């Protein structure tokens, strides 16, 4: 496989196959440091807070949240869409970048896909707990019942149930199939009998046989081919929760692809947030290189620009349509009581990523990290602006209201942040953070021995 010498090496440090195995397996084999314990103590307490708040919500009822008749969806659904959006980067990296033969994905796909699973878990919590009677949540599934009833297949909320369940399941399958050979690697390195047995079970008996590899490659490619439209469909269906309505600011045809771009945008930002820290702490800087960070930043600026164009399109179309409600909706966003949320969104999502046109900033780890936080904040506010400002003032002025989250809602959100980071911290100790077999596969063509490390 020929790779042009002007390309930056994907694996630095003149590695051998054995070194790759050693360095990536190290966090699993070694003991956790103080930083890890401190981290999980922090995230664990956030989880505890979240559990308490969720328990309180289920016990006392949805009245403990700040919702009202006018604004029926607030922080809960904002968080739901935010988390699902974040999850999309993982599938994008595994599936769409695989279909586009982007070799640089090999060192980030494993952790990005894991991130997807954790994000979807956090997201899935919200449709469940925001129900009036969460203990009857199973009503959303079409099972034969004595009432003779079926679920409402016409409702986008139900399409969500199927979309997110499918997304979680397929992502899990895709992630796990990819993991099997790497678990085999860990199994063969384990000294303790118990650990060897556990990883042995988890590795499904992987031997590295050529026929198995052939099937493995085939299934990975097809799962990628399936996951690519899946990722488009899931966030499109989530956007349809809003777009199928009739209210200004919600009902607009651009939502499906615009939400998908926004999801990839925020997802990549979260991948950067996680990996910039992880690569330093786990000594994986030779695998997740500055070049990788730059490539991710390029996707960020592309999707961020698409999101910016979508904002401008909406603004223009609101004016062009001549529909006074549509025009007011956007005037209100920019100048009404929630103007501060709107301008945070605009500066974080539209203005700040444009700085990535400068190569120096694209390759700066500090800048990328800070920017990734701003983007995630901005994307949270985007969902907040769409949901709350469109609801709080629609067609009937006598219904206009304001919304403020209660401490319960804020606590649940913090809890999901805690859950996400706890799961990630556990992940890095149990499974290899980088796809060992895939990285070995690109070592010859894209490693430092082959390419000039000074070119970039």
């Amino acid at each position, binding site marked *: 496989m020929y790779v042009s010498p002007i390309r930056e090496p994907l694996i630095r440090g003149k590695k051998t196959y054995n070194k790759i195995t050693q360095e990536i397996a190290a966090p699993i084999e070694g003991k956790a440091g103080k930083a890890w314990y401190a981290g999980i103590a922090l995230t664990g307490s956030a989880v505890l807070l979240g559990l308490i708040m969720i328990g309180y919500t289920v016990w006392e009822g949805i009245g403990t949240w700040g919702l009202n008749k006018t604004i029926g969806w607030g922080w809960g659904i904002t968080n739901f869409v935010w988390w699902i959006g974040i999850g999309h980067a993982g599938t994008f990296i595994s599936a769409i970048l695989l279909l586009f033969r982007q070799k640089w994905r090999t060192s980030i796909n494993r952790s990005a896909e894991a991130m997807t699973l954790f994000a979807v878990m956090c997201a899935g919590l919200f449709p469940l707990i925001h129900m009036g009677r969460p203990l009857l949540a199973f009503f959303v599934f*079409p099972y034969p019942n004595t009432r003779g009833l079926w679920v409402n297949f016409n409702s986008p909320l139900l*399409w969500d149930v199927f979309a997110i369940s499918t997304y979680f399941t397929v992502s899990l399958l895709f992630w796990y199939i990819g993991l099997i050979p790497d678990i085999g690697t860990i199994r063969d390195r384990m000294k303790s009998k118990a650990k060897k047995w556990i990883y042995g079970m988890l590795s499904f008996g992987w031997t590295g046989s050529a026929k198995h590899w052939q099937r493995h490659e085939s299934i990975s490619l097809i799962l990628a081919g399936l996951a690519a439209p899946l990722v488009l469909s899931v966030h499109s269906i989530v956007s349809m929760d809003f777009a199928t309505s009739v209210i200004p600011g919600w009902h607009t045809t651009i939502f499906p692809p615009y939400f998908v771009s926004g999801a990839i945008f925020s997802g990549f930002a979260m991948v950067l947030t996680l990996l910039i820290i992880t690569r330093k702490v786990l000594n994986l800087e030779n695998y997740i290189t500055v070049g990788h960070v730059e490539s991710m930043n390029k996707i960020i600026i592309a999707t961020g620009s698409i999101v910016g164009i979508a904002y401008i399109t909406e603004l223009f179309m609101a004016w062009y349509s001549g529909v006074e409600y549509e025009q007011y909706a956007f005037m209100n966003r920019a100048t009404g009581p929630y103007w501060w949320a709107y301008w945070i969104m605009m500066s974080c999502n539209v203005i700040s990523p444009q700085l990535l046109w400068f190569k120096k900033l694209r390759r700066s780890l500090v800048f990328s990290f800070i920017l990734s936080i701003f983007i995630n904040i901005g994307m949270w506010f985007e969902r907040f602006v769409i949901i709350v400002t469109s609801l709080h003032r629609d067609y009937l002025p006598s219904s206009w209201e304001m919304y403020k989250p209660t401490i319960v809602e804020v606590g649940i959100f913090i809890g999901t942040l805690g859950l996400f980071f706890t799961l990630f911290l556990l992940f890095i100790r149990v499974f290899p953070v980088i796809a060992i077999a895939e990285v070995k596969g690109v070592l010859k063509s894209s490693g430092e021995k082959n390419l000039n490390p000074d070119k970039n």
Partner: protein
Amino acid sequence: MRRYISAYFEDEENLLRAAKDLKNNNISIQDVLSPFPIHGLDPILGFKKSLIPTVGFISGAIGTIVAFGFQTWAFTVDYPLFIGGKPHFSIPSFIPITFELTVLFAAFGMVTAFLVRSKLGPGAKKTIHDERITDDHFVIIVDLEESGSQDGMVEEILLKEMAQEIQVKEIEL
């Protein structure tokens, strides 16, 4: 009695050349074990294209029919309701769920086929030939004739490509 020879290489390109040589001499290779898939190996080992994509297509098609069929039946035959002025047979509404179940069925079908055909699964009985395979060793296992006439040729081909730990093994059948 089945006899075979096993050896390992440190570089997959050597293995690839050795395998080609063996194939040119009509020697059957039982298996190649590697830490990652070696490109160009499949045609040398005579592998037919995997049928997993076909399984995927069929499972997906089943998913499409099940999803679209069920929604249609539930909303036109079993319990038709007027919801938001939509027709009973509301095709556009049915599409999202139909798409999702198509993907779900396809994924499940393929993963099942993959695991069953490869006989992989939790608790699968597999002998791990060499623990270093999943690290950086590329192992080739070559079938030998009972008479032992091929032994010399095979060893020569393997040694030419710097194979290590060449071992001849016999199994009683």
